[in-house]
């Protein structure tokens, strides 16, 4: 049987999506359901003086109106930060309460204060208009850089500072800088982004009074984790009385990791009114209340020798958490950021210091890449600047500082098991025709255009994550993954995974893995996920962990099935289990060459006993049935890496940046389905290029979101991109049996510095901030003209 792992298997999920049979949360309608509309704060910061629902209650069709008071009375808990971070001085981070419905204070535009539940959506909307809230408007804090000087947002949290965290050794860094020939320094803004999964968030909550069970259908990347949080912290219902279903989910990119206010409120309220409640976000609500991403202000320095050896690195960052600290809010700018800050280089001394601040803006949390794009942007902009200042070719300078041997003990935390950064660089240069760039630049110049080339070499730590490691770093849970493999008596297989697909193709790639492990045709394998009632607990999908953690759990469960199969075969064929081999779906006794198919063995496992020909196939001590579970806890993170090269052409008359070429050469370890990996790379690149050239979330000083619709927030469109040129090098991960590393975030991590390095190269080294819009670039072009004129 040909191996499926490694081949372009078409996706099993596609037919339903292509024929309109997908079942997303907003497509679900339950009998007798009601509709919820949330009343939200129009102010960024205010105290609630009075909230009057009398008029609204009289509005037609209203079933119930609930506010922060009822939720507090019922002791429903608030939203939480999933990681406890300690400051450099040893103190614990400071987190404000974040009730699902605000009672006393609102802290960002969109913070919900009440929910109106009515018989129809139109009636809910109309009644929501009639809820009267009397706010005392307070001065908002909106700037990341100045947040520590603003008014105190949350009582008792001085300087709006959640934590002041350090990773690394300041003294060693100082010594390294003292020895340096040159110090390159840079000030960077990592622009704030809005994830914008195309499916707006939604939930449908239902209560079964007979079983006293709440069922929540929700747009989540991790239904089990959501249930845990809603139960343990939200106090909504005990876990066995709460079922969370994340059916087809239309993209997540991190924004659907969090349990949101609406999930908790609708679940709680459904029980209260004993009816189903449906809520679907309008896109403008998504803009205001989905978690946002990035938003760092950084000063970084690199100490170098004159021949380009890196000696030391420092990174001082202010990270905006928004109004509240959410699930991955505090780990994103710390352990997902700091350890990767030194990039793919051997740097003897380094530190990263992060001050995480609260502002009156939407909560900031993990968005595709989470911390690693910010880290990579800083070091790769800095290295590019160093190459300009030292006059050393940008690729040579990088190679000079690459590790030469693996495992590579990276400066701050990670031990990178495998990789070959030089090979990746060489291949990328070849793919991009790096040598031919000068000629292309001259051609552009002849047309009156500016041309630039930018390079990024990155690595990232994903496949999160070893529980022992993350829990010692403050994570509130272990980040293992589970799988259950069930053989039906008649030979088909159902695989339950705790990870979740919202575009990642689990139904196909996971089935490929199981098909190879078990020798069962892929058509006979179903992957089930997304429902806490189906399968064991699992941690969900983020941090490029589905395959590197969830996939391995499937492999391990399959291996257990095969082990049992060998014992059963031995009993059936009167052989020693040690003499039974398994290959391509058959158990073969090596001495006699007698065999049983895995289907026969499965059938036998379900029909133990003696009758006619049938002898009990079950060896002593083995129970009937054929079903195995695995909880896989990885021994290390996985470390994809690569080199990307971009070329841009700028029209100095208009400032328009045209991305001419984009080359990505990545090392994802072993590839299960090249077609799917390609798709993941393309999508990541589009988001990364979007950050560099188009996207930006902006608040004004009063805390109003200025980019709250697709008219103001520039989403990348089909005509914004060239055809991507992608390729791979492949060093297998040594820390998991499949040798896989993870590919979901690479594009979003590598693309922003790659594109910006190219833009800044074209602009003769002038810094521009992301996104490099025509206006900013046009101004820089004018400056360039002026300084060129002066020089001449």
């Amino acid at each position, binding site marked *: 049987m040909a191996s499926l792992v490694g081949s372009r298997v078409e996706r099993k999920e596609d*037919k339903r999506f292509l024929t309109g049979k997908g079942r997303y949360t907003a497509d679900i309608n339950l009998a007798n359901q009601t509709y919820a509309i949330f009343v939200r704060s129009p102010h960024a910061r205010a105290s609630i003086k009075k909230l009057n629902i009398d008029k609204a209650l009289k509005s037609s069709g209203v079933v119930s109106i609930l506010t922060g008071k009822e939720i507090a009375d019922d002791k429903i808990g608030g939203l939480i930060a999933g990681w406890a971070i300690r400051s450099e001085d040893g103190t614990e981070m400071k987190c404000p309460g974040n009730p699902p419905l605000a009672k006393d204070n609102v802290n960002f535009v969109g913070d919900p204060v009440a929910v109106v539940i009515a018989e129809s959506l139109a009636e809910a909307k109309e009644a929501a208009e009639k809820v009267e809230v009397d706010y005392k408007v307070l001065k908002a804090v909106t700037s990341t850089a100045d947040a520590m000087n603003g008014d105190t947002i949350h009582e008792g949290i001085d300087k709006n500072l959640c934590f002041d965290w350090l990773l690394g050794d300041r003294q060693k860094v100082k010594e390294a800088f003292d020895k340096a020939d040159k110090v390159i320094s840079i000030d960077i803004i990592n622009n704030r982004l809005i994830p914008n999964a195309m499916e707006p968030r939604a939930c449908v909550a239902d209560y079964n009074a007979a079983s006293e069970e709440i069922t929540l259908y929700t747009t989540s990347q991790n239904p089990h984790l959501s249930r845990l949080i809603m139960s343990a912290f939200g106090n909504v219902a005990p876990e066995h009385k709460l079922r969370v279903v994340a059916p087809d989910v239309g993209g997540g990119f991190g924004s659907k990791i969090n349990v949101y206010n609406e999930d908790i409120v609708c679940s709680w309220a459904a029980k209260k009114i004993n009816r189903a409640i449906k809520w679907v976000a309008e896109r403008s609500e998504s803009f205001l209340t989905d978690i946002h991403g990035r938003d760092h202000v950084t000063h970084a320095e690199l100490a170098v020798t004159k021949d380009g050896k890196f000696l030391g690195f420092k990174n001082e960052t202010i990270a905006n958490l928004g109004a509240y600290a959410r699930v991955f809010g505090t780990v994103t700018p710390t352990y997902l950021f700091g350890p990767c800050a030194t990039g793919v280089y051997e740097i003897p001394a380094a530190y990263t210091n992060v001050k995480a601040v609260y502002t009156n803006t939407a909560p900031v949390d993990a968005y595709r890449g989470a911390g690693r794009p910010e880290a990579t942007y800083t070091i790769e902009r800095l290295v590019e600047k160093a190459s300009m200042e030292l006059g050393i070719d940008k690729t040579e300078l990088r190679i000079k500082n690459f590790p030469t041997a693996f495992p590579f003990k990276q400066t701050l935390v990670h031990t990178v098991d495998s990789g070959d950064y030089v090979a990746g660089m060489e291949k990328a240069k070849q793919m991009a025709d790096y040598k031919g760039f000068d000629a292309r630049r001259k051609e552009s110049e002849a047309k009156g255009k500016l041309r630039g080339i930018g390079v990024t070499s990155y690595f990232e730590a994903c496949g999160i994550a070893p529980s022992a490691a993350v829990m010692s770093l403050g994570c509130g849970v272990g980040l293992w993954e589970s799988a259950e493999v069930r053989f039906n008596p008649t030979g088909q297989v159902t695989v339950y995974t705790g990870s979740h697909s919202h575009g990642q193709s689990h139904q196909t790639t996971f089935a490929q893995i199981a098909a190879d492990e078990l020798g069962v045709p892929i058509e006979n394998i179903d992957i089930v996920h997304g429902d806490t009632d189906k399968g064991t607990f699992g941690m969900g999908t983020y941090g490029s962990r589905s395959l590197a953690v969830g996939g391995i759990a499937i492999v391990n469960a399959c291996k257990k099935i095969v082990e049992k199969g060998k014992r059963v075969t031995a009993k059936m064929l009167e052989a020693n289990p040690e003499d039974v081999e398994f290959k391509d779906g058959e158990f073969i006794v090596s001495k006699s060459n007698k065999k049983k198919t895995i289907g026969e063995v499965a059938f036998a496992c379900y029909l133990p006993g003696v009758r006619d020909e049938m002898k009990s196939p079950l060896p002593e001590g083995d129970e009937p049935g054929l079903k195995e579970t695995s909880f896989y806890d990885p021994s290390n993170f996985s470390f994809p890496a690569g080199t990307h090269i971009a070329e841009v052409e700028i029209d100095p008359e208009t400032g328009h940046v045209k991305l001419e070429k984009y080359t990505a050469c990545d090392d994802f370890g072993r590839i299960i389905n090249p077609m799917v990996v390609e798709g993941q790379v393309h999508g990541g690149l589009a988001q990364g290029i979007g950050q560099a050239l188009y996207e930006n979330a902006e608040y004004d000083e009063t805390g109003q979101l200025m980019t709250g619709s697709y008219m103001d927030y520039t989403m990348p469109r089909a005509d914004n991109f060239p055809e991507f040129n992608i390729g791979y090098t492949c060093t297998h991960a040594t820390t998991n049996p499949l040798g896989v590393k993870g590919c979901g975030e690479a594009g979003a991590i590598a693309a922003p510095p790659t594109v910006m390095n190219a833009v800044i190269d074209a602009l003769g080294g002038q810094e521009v901030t992301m996104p490099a819009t025509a206006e900013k670039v046009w101004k820089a072009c004018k400056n360039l003209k002026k300084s060129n004129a002066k020089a001449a």
Partner: protein
Amino acid sequence: MFKSYWVKILIKGEIMGKISLEVNGRKVEKEASDNTLLSTFLREHLQLTGTHIGCDTSQCGACVVHVDGNSLKSCTALAADVNGSKVTTIEGLETNGKMHPMQEAFKKLHGLQCGFCTPGMVMSAVDLLQKNKKPSDTEIRDWLEGNICRCTGYQNIVSAVKEAATKM
């Protein structure tokens, strides 16, 4: 008086009317308030949930359907406006259980990931090929400018449209 009439129709939707359409080859007739968007009519009144709603400013294209053969963002039209028309949604693209060449091409070339933009994307692309049998890459990208996809980076969508063009 004139103003209150519009308030009634557009804001409150108090005036009910009969909407008659031919949807995916089937005649349908339903009562709906006059402010019902075509997208809402399809999803809520006919339970054709393949047509998706991705925005509230008519900019994402997730809701594209064909009305009398031409692609239209169904969130930009009132159901009453298209009364009497023939509407095709993503559910109506198969013939005798066989996927349309565009659907086949999207599957073959991985033109979709989460599937949310997909119905609108496919319906737009089918209309493009009705109007331009052999579009260039640039023409495809320009045509699809009104459809946002957050997952695929568009490249495989462009390839799928080209592939479908060879089959139609």
